[in-house]
């Protein structure tokens, strides 16, 4: 038995440290620790609630947009503001494209190198690669000449000895299974995806001024005007540009992401048995119909809300936000009422209390407090959130678009739904979701276009814009499905100012340390049973951890 | 504006009933022309600067579809009157060293024992403890000190104003000589202070006009008219 440490966990957002107990060639226990905290909840206190979205968006530049949306929803919920339909649709378009963008970047640039051995691609036969590529997809850049050029470029790059981001990778590790042709194909798409993502995200610039950190959210709507007869507002040209970018996104997901995902999954079947983890899943749901605030209205969500317990897909349990509470027993905070209680976010406290070793250190005291992440629990149960949770809840709820996509993917791989409760399942759910949402985003654009065509140009509900129209006190929460899962912002407004602001983030759920009852968080649970071929090269830990797409800036904030 | 014709210097022109013991009085030309011209120039420019400045910070007139140049004019007028204002202030500073004894710099500072005494007595008068206003020919010591504070505010306005002006011309002489201001205070804070001081200046004006009126009605020296004519009635027993 030995304890190994992986710190920094790379190819994620932020500062994550994993300590794992390894017995023989398997992980028997694990501790997840986020080692960075900024105190954004404290910084928000006393400020103008209408500014909160701008601050909270900076929680994360990877899942940019999501905290902005959760925040405006929280304030709107507190004050009883309903934004106009156009604003809702624009927000949803931003969200849907954020999902597709984030998932593509995750798959190719954060996760792929866990499955793809770049150096092995040097042994690939360009012709064989072209055959492989053409057999799985009609993606255009699939000719022998293309792969020969890519291979030559890689060879040239490697020969220079300056590997840049590929320096010191686990190349040649026995757990890599893709053939050289698969690796070359993936490397080629790694580069294409870099190009794709920066172009696709122009959607955000069109609707939000820039990316990352869009600048058109408003409490009560959005700040980008709509006027088909103005050159300074969303007009037909904007809509046409959006359409072509969204179509481009759908094409890329269909022709590259999904085929590549299935290719990887088919070479790693054993990873459908590894990394299952908690088996409890929570989804807030997203993409409300019409102008509803999902914090208020769980019906009509395109991706439904619900809870799956113990991997049981036969029942979807309802979500009651009041049952969310956070522990700090093993987190570097203290509660006035003692560190063994769980606090609901409306009464939440964020008081730092570092008890860990003074840096530099080798090991954390994992019996005590060991992370800047709090431990959120639903009805005292640890939950996994994220694409897998969303796809499972939607699948179990019978959401047609999801059921069809999931069944098709499972069919392609020749496995049943139980394969979803795994490392590969999580990764696959993300791809399936991208497909569903890339399609849905075009529906959203259609709705927006139709609404504008019907003469509705409203983008903001300004009735309660001025703080002197607000009640003396108000509380509200904003629910949102971020790419990494269920996100909620909780606000208390007193005298036109933020009195208390608490944020419970997807990666807080997934990356949480243990709670007062010793329940592990989702990363910790999923690592148990993960094989380790070489303790010096913890590639397998990366696979399972990356399948969650961790974001530590989000998790601890 | 002038309740009594002080230019005549005739005691008999004072309204009856208030002063029962008739005193010897002399007419003293306290405020030389430059002082008066400067005073009313400052008065006028402060009004213009305040109106245009207020607009710059909070454009209360919003033009319609017809393109106008409202903000452009406001800023141009602000800058132009700032130049006049700064010249007036500069002139007054020069005059503080070249003008008559009531215009001199020491009138604004409680430097002498006498002025401190006068300041104390005037304060007692204001606090309703002392009934009679201590009489002076120039400013009373308290007023002199208030003017000093006002001048400090003016100077801060000028420095901030020049620095804000300089923002438009990066690398210019104006920029180079004023940009240090923003090492002391960020740009929005500088604007905030510039605006806040505007309000303080108007707070001063209220106090100033009130006390001029008060002193006038107490002293019957024609203090208010003095800032127009330059002349004050001063009892000869105190010179």
């Amino acid at each position: 038995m030995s304890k190994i440490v992986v710190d920094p966990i790379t190819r994620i957002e932020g500062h994550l440290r994993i300590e794992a107990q390894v017995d023989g060639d398997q992980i028997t226990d694990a501790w997840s620790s986020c080692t960075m905290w900024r105190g954004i909840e404290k910084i928000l206190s006393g400020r103008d609630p209408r500014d909160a979205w701008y601050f909270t968006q900076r929680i994360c530049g990877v899942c940019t947009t999501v905290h902005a949306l959760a925040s405006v929803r929280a304030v709107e919920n507190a004050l009883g503001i309903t934004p106009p339909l156009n604003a809702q649709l624009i927000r949803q378009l931003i969200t849907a494209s954020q999902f597709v963008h984030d998932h593509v970047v995750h798959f190719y640039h954060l996760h792929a190198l866990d499955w793809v051995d770049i150096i092995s691609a040097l042994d690939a036969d360009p012709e064989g690669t072209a055959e492989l590529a053409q057999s799985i997809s009609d993606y255009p850049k699939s000719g022998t000449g293309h792969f020969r050029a890519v291979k030559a470029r890689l060879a040239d790059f490697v020969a220079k000895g300056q590997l840049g981001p590929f320096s010191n990778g686990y190349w040649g590790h026995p757990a890599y299974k893709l053939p050289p042709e698969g690796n070359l194909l993936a490397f080629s798409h790694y580069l294409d995806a870099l190009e794709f993502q920066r172009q696709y995200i122009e959607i955000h610039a069109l609707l939000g001024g820039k990316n990352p950190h869009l600048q058109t959210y408003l409490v009560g709507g959005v700040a980008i005007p709509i006027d088909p007869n103005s050159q300074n507002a969303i007009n037909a040209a904007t809509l046409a540009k959006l359409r072509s970018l969204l179509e481009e996104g759908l094409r890329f997901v269909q022709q590259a992401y999904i085929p590549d995902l299935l290719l990887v999954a088919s070479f790693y079947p054993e990873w459908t048995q590894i990394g299952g983890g908690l088996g409890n899943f929570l989804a807030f749901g997203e993409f409300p119909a019409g102008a509803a605030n999902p914090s208020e209205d769980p019906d009509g969500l395109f991706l439904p809300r619900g809870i799956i317990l113990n991997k049981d897909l036969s029942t979807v349990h309802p979500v009651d936000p009041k049952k969310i509470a956070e522990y700090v027993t093993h987190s570097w905070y203290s509660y006035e009422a003692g560190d063994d209680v769980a606090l609901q976010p409306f009464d939440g406290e964020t008081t730092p209390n570092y008890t860990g070793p003074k840096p530099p250190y080798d090991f954390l005291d994992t019996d005590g407090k060991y992370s800047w992440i709090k431990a959120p629990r639903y009805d005292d149960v640890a939950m996994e959130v994220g694409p897998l949770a969303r796809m499972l809840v939607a699948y179990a709820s019978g959401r047609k678009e999801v059921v069809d996509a999931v069944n098709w993917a499972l069919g392609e791989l020749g496995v049943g739904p139980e394969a979803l409760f795994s490392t590969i399942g999580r990764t696959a759910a993300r791809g399936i979701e991208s497909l569903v949402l890339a399609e849905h985003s075009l529906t959203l654009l259609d709705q927006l276009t139709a609404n504008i065509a019907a003469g509705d140009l409203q983008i903001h509900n300004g009735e309660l814009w001025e703080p002197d129209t607000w009640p003396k006190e108000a509380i509200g929460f904003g629910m949102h499905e971020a790419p990494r899962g269920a996100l909620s912002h909780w606000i208390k407004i007193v005298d036109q100012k933020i009195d208390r602001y608490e944020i419970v983030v997807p990666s807080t759920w997934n990356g949480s340390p243990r709670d007062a009852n010793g329940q592990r968080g989702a990363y910790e649970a999923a690592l148990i049973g993960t094989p380790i071929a070489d303790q010096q090269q913890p590639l397998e830990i990366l696979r399972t951890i990356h399948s969650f797409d961790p974001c530590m800036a989000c998790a601890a904030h | 504006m002038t309740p009594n014709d002080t230019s005549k210097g005739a005691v008999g022109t004072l309204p009856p009933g208030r002063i029962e013991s008739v005193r010897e009085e002399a007419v003293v030309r306290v405020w030389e022309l430059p002082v008066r011209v400067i005073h009313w120039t400052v008065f006028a420019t402060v009004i213009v600067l305040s109106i245009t400045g207020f607009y710059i910070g909070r454009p209360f007139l919003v033009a319609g579809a017809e393109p106008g140049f409202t903000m452009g004019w406001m800023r141009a007028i602000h800058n132009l009157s700032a130049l006049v204002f700064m010249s007036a202030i500069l002139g007054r500073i020069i005059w503080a060293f070249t003008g008559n004894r009531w215009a001199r710099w020491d009138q604004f500072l409680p430097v002498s024992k006498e002025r401190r005494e006068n300041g104390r007595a005037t304060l007692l008068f204001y606090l309703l403890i002392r009934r009679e206003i201590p009489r002076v020919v120039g400013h009373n010591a308290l007023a002199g000190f208030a003017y000093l504070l006002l001048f400090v505010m003016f100077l801060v306005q000028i420095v901030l104003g020049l620095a804000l002006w300089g923002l438009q011309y990066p690398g210019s002489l104006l920029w180079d000589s004023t940009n240090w201001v923003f090492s002391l205070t960020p740009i929005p804070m500088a604007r905030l202070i510039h605006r806040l001081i505007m309000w303080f200046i108007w707070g001063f004006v209220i106090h100033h006009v009130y006390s001029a009126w008060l002193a006038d009605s107490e002293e019957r020296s024609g203090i208010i008219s003095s800032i127009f004519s330059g002349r004050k009635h001063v009892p000869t027993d105190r010179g």
Partner: protein
Amino acid sequence: MVHALTVTDDSLAGGLTKRGVSRRSFLQFCAAVTAILALPESYAPRIARALEEKAKPVVVWLKFQDCTGNTESFLRAHNPGIGDILLDVLAVEYHDTIMAAAGTQASAALKAAIEPGGHIVVVEGSIPLGDDGVYCVIGGRSAIQVLEETTVGASMIITAGTCSTFGGLPAAAPNPTGAVSVADVVSGVPIVSLPGCPMNVDNMIGAIVHILTFGAPPAADRLGRPLFAYGERIHDHCERRAHFDAGQFAVEWGDEGHKKGWCLYKMGCKGPSTFHNCPSTRWNGGTNWPVGAGHGCVGCSEPGFWDTMTPIYKPLPAPPGFGVTTNLDSIGLGILGATAVGFGAHGVAKAVQRRRSTPISIRSAEADGNEGTDQGSGQEADTDGDET
């Protein structure tokens, strides 16, 4: 000590042309960079020459109290594309968001990259100094330890984003972690400041190309920000400026003025207080920028903007010590009102005092006799009646 820039033997232009980037698009890239750097067009060939001769600089990218927004911005590089940058323009030997290695292998890659010296250190995120730096620890070492080790021998530091440049969001009041900027803790290595929340990747490419072309960091303002990107105000280059001058303002979100692209000053735009090239360079390949999308500038490239440029929807911040929703002019009017009421009350009190007082003759005598304090002297009075 400061080392010379370390570069690999592979030249940028060579890398670009070798992999099929035509000479023509390479020259286009040079022309684009010339524009970002605000240099005359005639400089493009000089830049091209410099890039053809120079080789890839070694870059290590450190992340502390950040949100990865600047990394994401970096990934949006479009000319040249980020793929070309990662393979051909820069040798990014350490960047924990994209690197293959993790844990000890990652730390080893960092060590290897900085050993020869001359590397460029890019820093994203602020450095928490509070409580021994426990608020940001990487591989068991605090941010400040990592930063100090990594900048030894560096040729320069580029601070990407407002957090590393000025402290940024973590340093916003009440700065719970004692966050500071790089310049607050590192000396002896030149710092190129690229604030922005996030920084605009075009400005980073511009700065790097400038360094490669001219062999020195670009000229900067007193805050270390290159003049080519932060030399002038948003407000002085904003496409809505004519509406500002005309007095045409949006006054409600979505009103006619807003739709027509009128000035956003009354909606809280901080363009007049902000130095950044957003209006000309724009974002995401020149697609748009915040004001272009209908929202005011928030001043994200200015120091302390989280505290000094907020509340976002008011032109000026709240006076320190007052709540955020307090309007400066209400305070001003309060000052006036209080003064007026105060002196009004004083006037009334004076009048009452007068009415109650003893006859003036006695009073005058009293006053004259006991408390004459005036120092004025009639003899010296200018009584000739002539105006001077």
